[in-house]
């Protein structure tokens, strides 16, 4: 029964303290069409829940609702399209469930769901979104800046936008992201406000040996620990090495928001709102200080997957999407060698970074070496892309956290270099990364 009576939620709309301007009121009254009214009612409901007293303008949205999660997604966007929706701000698309340019990844003819997943992505193009199809939109040119109010949706991207760029976004889920993009408005609440951005809990990694902190796996394990331990508090991390780059911060963003809800973290001396400990905590004291050691990292690694007796079946990289600099590292580490042909080796990235890597000749050489590179989507969720089953190594805590629940896999998390050495030799090769 699509398009039920809009007045059904009226009592929800009058309970908040929200002040609406004339234009917001017109949107809410339906004077700007039914799609706008539905979108505005959803924004007003969110404001009521957040106990916000005002709405603010946004300048950008990253849309997650294009990722298929059942028929309801399609019903929602079709309602919006059928009732004249258009977008108020530049809106970029997250991953889809399928790849629009590689039908072999998840075949749209194989099931009704995959067909609808494709239809859903096309519907968001029709709505006016910029079809970048990536969970790492911050790797593309034209990203938001420090202090910009935006709508982030995919959890790692929200965390990255807030933490690494200093743009301001709450964790906007499906539908609310689209409603914000249609209205250009969000509740002035939580992470849009200065006071909510103060760090509350401190993680100190300064006593972990430098060599361990320089390993890329460290950032994934750290993110996982932070996600598990910080609850609803904004964490700050002190003691990260100077070598820490955006790939490392991406790893923390993704791992922390898989294992917990961490839409914002501060890395003291590294991220833009945390020049010093005092600035990160806005002059207050931490409610808790946790000193992490190598045993914590070992335990995190064990919790994310064990090295079982099964033979190695494959490797999955690029969760979140592989960056240009990660491609560069991969090509250097692989150093002209090929993947053992018994293994499946997947790498997920965005169209934009794919093109950048292609210009360097990396795509061709990696494909010849046996790396399957996919765009628009990812490998860690169901249905499994072709050949992904059995024991899989990944360098991503996010992949390791989610995949066992959704795919017929057994996961082992490892550094990028361990993944590559294992893929070349055809069996698990682990370093003494945690030697102290």
């Amino acid at each position, binding site marked *: *029964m*699509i*398009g*039920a*009576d*809009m007045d*059904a*939620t009226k*009592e*929800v709309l009058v*309970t908040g303290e929200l002040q609406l301007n004339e234009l917001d009121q017109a949107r809410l009254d339906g004077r700007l069409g039914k799609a706008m009214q*539905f979108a505005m009612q*959803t924004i007003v*409901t*969110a404001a*009521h*829940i*957040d*106990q916000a007293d005002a709405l603010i303008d946004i300048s950008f949205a990253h849309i*997650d*609702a294009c*990722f298929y*999660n*059942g*028929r*309801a*997604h399609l*019903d*929602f966007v079709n*309602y919006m399209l059928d009732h004249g929706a258009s977008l108020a701000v530049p809106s970029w698309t*997250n991953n889809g469930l399928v790849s629009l340019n590689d039908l072999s990844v998840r075949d749209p003819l194989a099931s009704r769901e995959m067909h609808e997943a494709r239809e859903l992505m096309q519907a968001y193009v029709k709505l006016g979104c910029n079809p970048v199809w990536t969970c790492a939109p911050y790797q593309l040119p034209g990203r938001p800046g420090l202090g910009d109010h935006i709508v982030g*949706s*995919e*959890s790692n991207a*929200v965390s990255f936008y807030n933490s690494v760029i200093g743009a301001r976004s*709450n*964790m*906007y*889920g*499906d*539908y*609310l*992201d689209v409603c914000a993009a249609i209205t250009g408005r969000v509740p002035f609440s939580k992470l849009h406000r200065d006071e909510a951005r103060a760090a509350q809990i401190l993680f100190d990694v300064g006593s972990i040996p430098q060599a361990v902190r320089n390993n890329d796996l460290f950032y994934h394990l750290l993110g996982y620990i932070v996600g598990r331990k910080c609850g*609803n508090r904004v964490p700050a991390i002190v003691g990260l090495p100077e070598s820490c780059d955006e790939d490392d911060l991406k790893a923390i963003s993704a791992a922390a*928001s*898989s*294992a*917990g*809800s961490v839409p914002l973290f501060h890395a003291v001396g590294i991220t833009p709102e945390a020049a010093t400990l005092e600035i990160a905590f806005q002059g207050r004291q931490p409610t808790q200080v946790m000193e992490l050691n190598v045993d914590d990292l070992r335990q995190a690694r064990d*919790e994310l997957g064990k090295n079982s007796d099964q033979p190695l079946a494959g490797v999955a990289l690029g969760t979140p999407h592989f960056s240009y600099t990660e491609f560069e590292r991969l090509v250097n580490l692989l150093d002209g060698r090929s993947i053992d042909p018994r293994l499946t080796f997947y790498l997920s990235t965005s169209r934009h970074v794919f093109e950048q890597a292609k210009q360097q000749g990396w795509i061709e050489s990696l494909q010849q070496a046996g790396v399957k590179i996919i765009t628009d989507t990812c490998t860690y*969720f169901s249905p499994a892309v072709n050949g992904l089953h059995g024991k899989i190594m990944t360098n991503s805590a996010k992949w390791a*956290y*989610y995949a*066992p*629940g*959704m795919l017929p896999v057994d996961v082992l998390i490892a550094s990028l270099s361990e993944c590559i050495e294992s893929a070349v030799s055809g069996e698990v090769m682990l370093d003494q990364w945690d030697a102290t």
Partner: protein
Amino acid sequence: MSKQSVDIEGRVLIAGSADGPALVLDETLSFWGGFDPSNGEIIDVHHPQYRQLVGGKILCIPQSKGSAGTPGGIAETLRNGSGPIAFVLGEPDVNISVGTLVANRLYDMNIPVLEISRERMKQIKTGEAVFIDRNGRLSVNR
């Protein structure tokens, strides 16, 4: 045995009434990745209520977490009939509420969302009969 009843005043996030057995989750959950909306099953292997089904239950949950897919997971499980009959939250949760709002709107349903507090949620045990009215009053009958 004498009957004890617990009454809790909650904050109405989405108005509606419901009457059914409670399923209390001990930890936060992502309704994308940690939950299968096709049958209403918790599939997060790290979750204490792994493999439990939420269908027909008054789902008491501290909060959702992680993925932006939560509203979609909620809307889809409600659409196909495998979802809870009400949500009782330990903390305000926009994602659960928006998923419910969209399903209510698109499919002419009336699933309520009520916020109590994590502390008051401790008074509710899995399997107990819970009643929620439109004004946000929740009672547990024992």
